[in-house]
């Protein structure tokens, strides 16, 4: 699905906020950290089964 122009407007609004607020990282940290935490959880679930471990290998492109 193609994103509409309101998405790009949000990218602009947020960039301006970051540029003008030195403490932007405190706002962004929970969002960035939660993505890693959720992704780690998903990998851990995959890693519990043989099939899942094979999928992880595929995801990682091991030769």
């Amino acid at each position, binding site marked *: 699905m193609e*994103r509409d122009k309101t998405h*790009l407007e949000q*990218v*602009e609004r*947020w*960039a*301006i906020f*970051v*540029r003008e607020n030195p403490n*932007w*990282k*405190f706002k*962004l*940290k929970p*969002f*960035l*950290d939660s*993505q*890693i*935490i959720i*992704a*780690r959880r998903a*990998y*851990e679930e995959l*890693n519990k089964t043989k099939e899942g471990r094979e999928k*992880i290998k595929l995801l*990682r*492109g*091991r*030769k």
Partner: protein
Amino acid sequence: MRRGIDERTILDKFVEDFCEVVEKHVKYIICSGFVAIAHGRSRGTEDIDMIIEKISKEKFLKLHRDLDKAGFECMQSSKPEEIYEIYLINGDSVRYTLKGEFLPEMEIKFVKDELDLEQIKTRQKIPFTKLNIFFSSIESNIAFKEELLGAEKDLEDAKHLRIIYQGKIDEEKINKLKKRIGAVRYGKR
């Protein structure tokens, strides 16, 4: 340059710790998505892109040993000779994570052409990010994202960087770089 621990994200800590080891062995740059994220772009990423100078196998073995000591492991192989001979020297990237963690990953590859080499020569620490690591220049990141990568997220990353550095970006440098990217990577004249 290091800030209070509360402000650093999981990604920030991972990247700074990894780069601290790498810098002792070889010149590197962090480029692409993490440059935008370190400037506040609100999107996630699982991997951070690092380009390093081409080094001998002996030098790489030492680098790998120190990464191992610092708690990192390579996803492709635990044997550094294999990592070097099967992947790096053939132009393929390898991925390191913290031992026992699936994410984030540092994706490392050797320089592949004069454009990569020049990015390493002109690498810089960027005060805005408050991170003690070397990045490729903002202009080169914008040029690569707009000219070579071109996915929606890349164009949005470039737009974000353009807004952060509005009035401070060297457009002539970006345009020259775009032409060189066309020539070197696509054979355009």
